[in-house]
Protein backbone atom coordinates (compact mmCIF):
# COMPACT_ATOMS: atom_id res chain seq x y z
CA UNK A 1 0.00 0.00 0.00
CA UNK A 2 1.29 3.40 -0.93
CA UNK A 3 2.14 6.08 1.54
CA UNK A 4 -0.69 8.22 0.11
CA UNK A 5 -3.19 5.43 0.71
CA UNK A 6 -2.04 5.05 4.31
CA UNK A 7 -2.43 8.75 4.99
CA UNK A 8 -5.83 8.92 3.31
CA UNK A 9 -7.12 5.94 5.28
CA UNK A 10 -5.83 7.38 8.53
CA UNK A 11 -7.73 10.62 7.92
CA UNK A 12 -10.92 8.73 7.05
CA UNK A 13 -10.66 6.55 10.16
CA UNK A 14 -10.07 9.56 12.39
CA UNK A 15 -12.69 11.76 10.84
CA UNK A 16 -15.54 9.30 10.46
CA UNK A 17 -14.70 7.20 13.50
CA UNK A 18 -14.94 3.94 11.54
CA UNK A 19 -12.95 0.69 11.87
CA UNK A 20 -9.77 0.73 9.81
CA UNK A 21 -10.63 -2.56 8.12
CA UNK A 22 -13.78 -1.02 6.64
CA UNK A 23 -11.77 1.70 4.92
CA UNK A 24 -11.07 -0.19 1.72
CA UNK A 25 -10.52 1.33 -1.70
CA UNK A 26 -14.03 0.74 -2.99
CA UNK A 27 -15.72 1.97 0.20
CA UNK A 28 -18.13 4.80 -0.57
CA UNK A 29 -17.88 7.55 2.05
CA UNK A 30 -21.64 8.02 2.32
CA UNK A 31 -23.08 4.58 1.53
CA UNK A 32 -20.47 2.40 3.22
CA UNK A 33 -18.82 4.57 5.85
CA UNK A 34 -21.81 6.50 7.17
CA UNK A 35 -20.60 9.96 6.18
CA UNK A 36 -23.10 12.75 5.63
CA UNK A 37 -22.63 15.37 2.93
CA UNK A 38 -20.95 17.75 5.34
CA UNK A 39 -18.49 15.01 6.34
CA UNK A 40 -17.45 14.67 2.70
CA UNK A 41 -16.70 18.40 2.56
CA UNK A 42 -14.66 18.10 5.72
CA UNK A 43 -12.77 15.09 4.41
CA UNK A 44 -11.79 17.06 1.32
CA UNK A 45 -10.63 19.92 3.58
CA UNK A 46 -8.62 17.43 5.64
CA UNK A 47 -7.02 15.97 2.49
CA UNK A 48 -6.14 19.46 1.32
CA UNK A 49 -4.42 20.15 4.61
CA UNK A 50 -2.60 16.82 4.86
CA UNK A 51 -1.33 16.88 1.29
CA UNK A 52 -1.01 20.62 0.90
CA UNK A 53 -3.02 20.70 -2.29
CA UNK A 54 -6.09 22.57 -3.39
CA UNK A 55 -8.96 20.33 -4.46
CA UNK A 56 -11.33 22.34 -6.66
CA UNK A 57 -15.06 21.84 -6.17
CA UNK A 58 -15.56 20.01 -9.47
CA UNK A 59 -12.82 17.55 -8.54
CA UNK A 60 -14.13 17.20 -5.00
CA UNK A 61 -17.49 16.12 -6.39
CA UNK A 62 -15.84 13.15 -8.12
CA UNK A 63 -14.24 11.89 -4.91
CA UNK A 64 -16.88 9.55 -3.54
CA UNK A 65 -14.85 6.51 -2.51
CA UNK A 66 -11.63 6.00 -0.59
CA UNK A 67 -9.99 4.89 -3.84
CA UNK A 68 -11.11 8.06 -5.63
CA UNK A 69 -9.34 10.10 -2.98
CA UNK A 70 -6.17 8.03 -3.13
CA UNK A 71 -6.00 8.21 -6.93
CA UNK A 72 -6.67 11.95 -7.01
CA UNK A 73 -4.00 12.64 -4.41
CA UNK A 74 -1.42 10.31 -5.95
CA UNK A 75 -1.84 12.22 -9.18
CA UNK A 76 -2.05 15.75 -7.81
CA UNK A 77 -0.18 15.91 -4.51
CA UNK A 78 3.46 16.81 -4.53
Amino acid at each position, binding site marked *: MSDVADRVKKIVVEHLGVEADKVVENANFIDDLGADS*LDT*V*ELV*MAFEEEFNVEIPDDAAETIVTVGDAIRFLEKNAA
Partner: protein
Amino acid sequence: MFDLTGRKALVTGATGGIGGAIARALHAQGATVTLSGTRRAALDELASSLGERVHVVEANLSDKDSVEALVPAAEAAMEGLDILVNNAGVTKDNLFMRMKDEEWDTVIAVNLTASFRLSRAAVKNMMRRRYGRIVNIGSVVGSTGNPGQGNYAASKAGLIGMTKALAAEVASRNITVNCVAPGFIESPMTDVLNEKQREGILGTIPMGRLGQGDEIASSVVYLASQEAAYVTGQTLHVNGGMAMF
Protein backbone atom coordinates in the same frame (compact mmCIF):
# COMPACT_ATOMS: atom_id res chain seq x y z
CA MET B 1 -22.25 35.67 31.44
CA PHE B 2 -21.59 36.56 27.82
CA ASP B 3 -17.82 36.53 28.25
CA LEU B 4 -16.10 36.66 24.85
CA THR B 5 -12.51 36.65 26.07
CA GLY B 6 -10.30 34.98 23.49
CA ARG B 7 -12.97 35.06 20.79
CA LYS B 8 -12.20 36.65 17.44
CA ALA B 9 -14.89 38.66 15.71
CA LEU B 10 -15.28 40.34 12.32
CA VAL B 11 -17.87 43.11 12.02
CA THR B 12 -18.74 44.49 8.59
CA GLY B 13 -20.06 48.01 8.29
CA ALA B 14 -18.29 48.84 11.53
CA THR B 15 -18.35 52.57 10.92
CA GLY B 16 -22.14 52.72 10.87
CA GLY B 17 -24.27 53.56 13.88
CA ILE B 18 -25.27 49.97 14.58
CA GLY B 19 -22.01 48.39 13.38
CA GLY B 20 -19.92 50.62 15.61
CA ALA B 21 -22.08 49.77 18.61
CA ILE B 22 -21.76 46.05 17.83
CA ALA B 23 -17.98 46.29 17.52
CA ARG B 24 -17.70 48.19 20.81
CA ALA B 25 -19.96 45.74 22.63
CA LEU B 26 -18.12 42.63 21.41
CA HIS B 27 -14.84 44.27 22.31
CA ALA B 28 -16.12 45.23 25.76
CA GLN B 29 -16.95 41.56 26.40
CA GLY B 30 -13.33 40.68 25.72
CA ALA B 31 -13.33 39.74 22.04
CA THR B 32 -10.63 40.67 19.59
CA VAL B 33 -12.36 42.56 16.81
CA THR B 34 -11.64 43.24 13.17
CA LEU B 35 -13.44 46.34 11.95
CA SER B 36 -14.38 46.40 8.31
CA GLY B 37 -15.90 49.14 6.22
CA THR B 38 -15.21 51.49 3.36
CA ARG B 39 -14.21 54.61 5.26
CA ARG B 40 -10.64 54.21 6.42
CA ALA B 41 -10.50 57.32 8.61
CA ALA B 42 -13.65 56.38 10.50
CA LEU B 43 -12.40 52.81 10.96
CA ASP B 44 -9.08 54.04 12.31
CA GLU B 45 -10.84 56.44 14.66
CA LEU B 46 -13.01 53.67 16.10
CA ALA B 47 -9.99 51.37 16.34
CA SER B 48 -7.98 53.91 18.28
CA SER B 49 -10.88 54.54 20.66
CA LEU B 50 -11.00 50.81 21.40
CA GLY B 51 -7.25 50.51 21.95
CA GLU B 52 -5.96 46.95 22.01
CA ARG B 53 -7.35 43.79 20.43
CA VAL B 54 -8.46 45.67 17.33
CA HIS B 55 -7.67 45.29 13.64
CA VAL B 56 -8.88 47.20 10.62
CA VAL B 57 -9.51 45.74 7.16
CA GLU B 58 -10.98 48.02 4.51
CA ALA B 59 -13.47 46.32 2.23
CA ASN B 60 -15.98 47.36 -0.37
CA LEU B 61 -18.75 44.80 -0.18
CA SER B 62 -20.17 45.66 -3.58
CA ASP B 63 -16.89 44.38 -5.07
CA LYS B 64 -16.52 40.59 -5.32
CA ASP B 65 -12.73 40.53 -5.00
CA SER B 66 -12.84 42.82 -2.00
CA VAL B 67 -15.44 40.58 -0.33
CA GLU B 68 -13.42 37.43 -0.99
CA ALA B 69 -10.29 38.97 0.48
CA LEU B 70 -11.98 40.05 3.70
CA VAL B 71 -12.33 36.82 5.69
CA PRO B 72 -8.79 35.60 4.90
CA ALA B 73 -7.44 39.03 5.91
CA ALA B 74 -9.38 38.99 9.18
CA GLU B 75 -8.30 35.41 9.91
CA ALA B 76 -4.70 36.34 9.26
CA ALA B 77 -4.86 39.44 11.45
CA MET B 78 -6.54 37.70 14.40
CA GLU B 79 -5.20 34.17 13.82
CA GLY B 80 -8.73 32.85 13.53
CA LEU B 81 -12.34 33.88 13.32
CA ASP B 82 -15.04 32.72 15.74
CA ILE B 83 -17.73 35.35 15.26
CA LEU B 84 -18.86 36.86 11.97
CA VAL B 85 -21.32 39.74 12.11
CA ASN B 86 -22.76 40.54 8.68
CA ASN B 87 -23.91 44.03 9.53
CA ALA B 88 -23.04 46.13 6.49
CA GLY B 89 -26.06 47.30 4.58
CA VAL B 90 -27.11 49.95 2.13
CA THR B 91 -30.42 51.40 1.02
CA LYS B 92 -31.39 52.66 -2.43
CA ASP B 93 -35.03 53.43 -1.88
CA ASN B 94 -37.39 53.97 -4.76
CA LEU B 95 -40.96 53.21 -5.69
CA PHE B 96 -41.10 49.73 -7.11
CA MET B 97 -42.19 50.88 -10.56
CA ARG B 98 -39.38 53.41 -10.71
CA MET B 99 -36.67 51.22 -9.26
CA LYS B 100 -33.60 50.95 -11.49
CA ASP B 101 -31.88 47.61 -11.99
CA GLU B 102 -28.77 49.21 -10.58
CA GLU B 103 -30.60 50.17 -7.36
CA TRP B 104 -31.86 46.63 -7.00
CA ASP B 105 -28.51 45.02 -7.82
CA THR B 106 -26.45 47.18 -5.47
CA VAL B 107 -28.67 46.51 -2.47
CA ILE B 108 -28.84 42.76 -3.11
CA ALA B 109 -25.07 42.63 -3.70
CA VAL B 110 -24.07 44.38 -0.48
CA ASN B 111 -26.80 43.19 1.88
CA LEU B 112 -27.29 39.62 0.71
CA THR B 113 -24.62 38.37 -1.69
CA ALA B 114 -21.70 39.71 0.36
CA SER B 115 -23.16 38.08 3.47
CA PHE B 116 -23.37 34.80 1.56
CA ARG B 117 -19.77 35.01 0.39
CA LEU B 118 -18.42 36.04 3.79
CA SER B 119 -20.36 33.30 5.55
CA ARG B 120 -19.19 30.71 3.01
CA ALA B 121 -15.60 31.73 3.60
CA ALA B 122 -15.87 31.91 7.38
CA VAL B 123 -17.74 28.69 7.94
CA LYS B 124 -14.92 26.62 6.47
CA ASN B 125 -12.54 27.25 9.34
CA MET B 126 -15.39 27.32 11.86
CA MET B 127 -16.10 23.72 10.82
CA ARG B 128 -12.47 22.82 11.36
CA ARG B 129 -12.53 24.31 14.83
CA ARG B 130 -15.99 22.96 15.62
CA TYR B 131 -17.08 26.36 16.84
CA GLY B 132 -18.59 29.42 15.26
CA ARG B 133 -21.15 32.16 15.54
CA ILE B 134 -22.61 33.95 12.56
CA VAL B 135 -24.99 36.83 13.23
CA ASN B 136 -26.71 38.45 10.28
CA ILE B 137 -28.22 41.86 10.79
CA GLY B 138 -31.60 41.88 9.10
CA SER B 139 -34.39 44.37 9.46
CA VAL B 140 -38.00 44.47 10.52
CA VAL B 141 -38.86 45.31 6.91
CA GLY B 142 -37.55 41.90 5.85
CA SER B 143 -40.61 40.51 7.60
CA THR B 144 -43.13 43.33 7.18
CA GLY B 145 -42.17 44.92 3.87
CA ASN B 146 -42.06 48.68 3.45
CA PRO B 147 -43.13 50.87 0.56
CA GLY B 148 -40.18 52.22 -1.37
CA GLN B 149 -37.90 49.47 -0.12
CA GLY B 150 -38.63 46.52 -2.38
CA ASN B 151 -34.92 45.90 -2.83
CA TYR B 152 -33.99 46.39 0.82
CA ALA B 153 -36.90 44.28 2.11
CA ALA B 154 -36.03 41.50 -0.34
CA SER B 155 -32.38 41.54 0.72
CA LYS B 156 -33.28 41.37 4.41
CA ALA B 157 -35.90 38.67 3.92
CA GLY B 158 -33.27 36.79 1.92
CA LEU B 159 -30.92 36.98 4.89
CA ILE B 160 -33.53 35.33 7.10
CA GLY B 161 -33.91 32.40 4.69
CA MET B 162 -30.16 32.10 4.24
CA THR B 163 -29.72 32.14 8.02
CA LYS B 164 -32.10 29.21 8.45
CA ALA B 165 -30.58 27.14 5.65
CA LEU B 166 -27.01 27.59 6.81
CA ALA B 167 -28.00 27.07 10.45
CA ALA B 168 -29.47 23.68 9.56
CA GLU B 169 -26.37 22.69 7.61
CA VAL B 170 -23.76 23.45 10.23
CA ALA B 171 -25.57 22.95 13.54
CA SER B 172 -23.92 19.57 14.03
CA ARG B 173 -20.53 21.31 13.96
CA ASN B 174 -21.36 23.54 16.89
CA ILE B 175 -21.83 26.57 14.68
CA THR B 176 -24.88 28.75 15.16
CA VAL B 177 -26.32 31.14 12.61
CA ASN B 178 -28.89 33.70 13.66
CA CYS B 179 -30.37 36.97 12.58
CA VAL B 180 -31.02 40.15 14.55
CA ALA B 181 -33.74 42.26 12.97
CA PRO B 182 -33.69 45.87 14.15
CA GLY B 183 -36.68 48.16 13.87
CA PHE B 184 -36.03 51.88 13.64
CA ILE B 185 -32.73 52.66 15.33
CA GLU B 186 -31.07 56.05 15.84
CA SER B 187 -28.35 55.99 13.20
CA PRO B 188 -27.19 57.84 10.11
CA MET B 189 -29.80 55.77 8.22
CA THR B 190 -32.65 57.26 10.30
CA ASP B 191 -31.10 60.71 10.80
CA VAL B 192 -32.22 61.57 7.29
CA LEU B 193 -35.90 61.28 8.24
CA ASN B 194 -37.70 64.59 8.53
CA GLU B 195 -39.78 65.53 11.57
CA LYS B 196 -43.06 64.44 9.99
CA GLN B 197 -41.67 61.05 8.94
CA ARG B 198 -40.22 60.64 12.39
CA GLU B 199 -43.52 61.34 14.09
CA GLY B 200 -45.28 58.95 11.75
CA ILE B 201 -42.82 56.21 12.64
CA LEU B 202 -43.04 56.85 16.37
CA GLY B 203 -46.79 56.38 16.12
CA THR B 204 -46.22 52.80 14.99
CA ILE B 205 -43.84 51.89 17.80
CA PRO B 206 -45.53 50.85 21.07
CA MET B 207 -42.36 51.79 22.94
CA GLY B 208 -42.79 55.34 21.62
CA ARG B 209 -39.13 55.89 20.78
CA LEU B 210 -36.46 54.84 18.31
CA GLY B 211 -34.03 52.17 19.43
CA GLN B 212 -30.36 52.69 20.23
CA GLY B 213 -27.47 50.97 18.52
CA ASP B 214 -26.47 49.53 21.89
CA GLU B 215 -29.79 47.74 22.08
CA ILE B 216 -28.98 45.90 18.86
CA ALA B 217 -25.41 45.29 19.97
CA SER B 218 -26.48 43.57 23.19
CA SER B 219 -28.60 41.14 21.18
CA VAL B 220 -25.60 40.38 19.01
CA VAL B 221 -23.43 39.83 22.08
CA TYR B 222 -25.96 37.35 23.39
CA LEU B 223 -26.15 35.38 20.13
CA ALA B 224 -22.35 35.42 19.85
CA SER B 225 -21.90 34.06 23.35
CA GLN B 226 -21.53 30.55 24.70
CA GLU B 227 -24.82 31.09 26.55
CA ALA B 228 -26.71 31.12 23.22
CA ALA B 229 -25.23 27.77 22.13
CA TYR B 230 -28.66 26.16 21.65
CA VAL B 231 -30.16 29.05 19.69
CA THR B 232 -29.79 28.71 15.92
CA GLY B 233 -31.66 29.65 12.77
CA GLN B 234 -33.62 32.27 14.68
CA THR B 235 -34.47 35.87 13.99
CA LEU B 236 -34.45 38.06 17.08
CA HIS B 237 -36.62 41.12 16.49
CA VAL B 238 -35.49 44.20 18.36
CA ASN B 239 -37.99 46.85 17.43
CA GLY B 240 -39.79 48.34 20.44
CA GLY B 241 -42.83 46.24 19.63
CA MET B 242 -43.54 47.78 16.22
CA ALA B 243 -44.00 44.30 14.74
CA MET B 244 -44.57 41.19 16.73
CA PHE B 245 -44.06 37.67 15.39
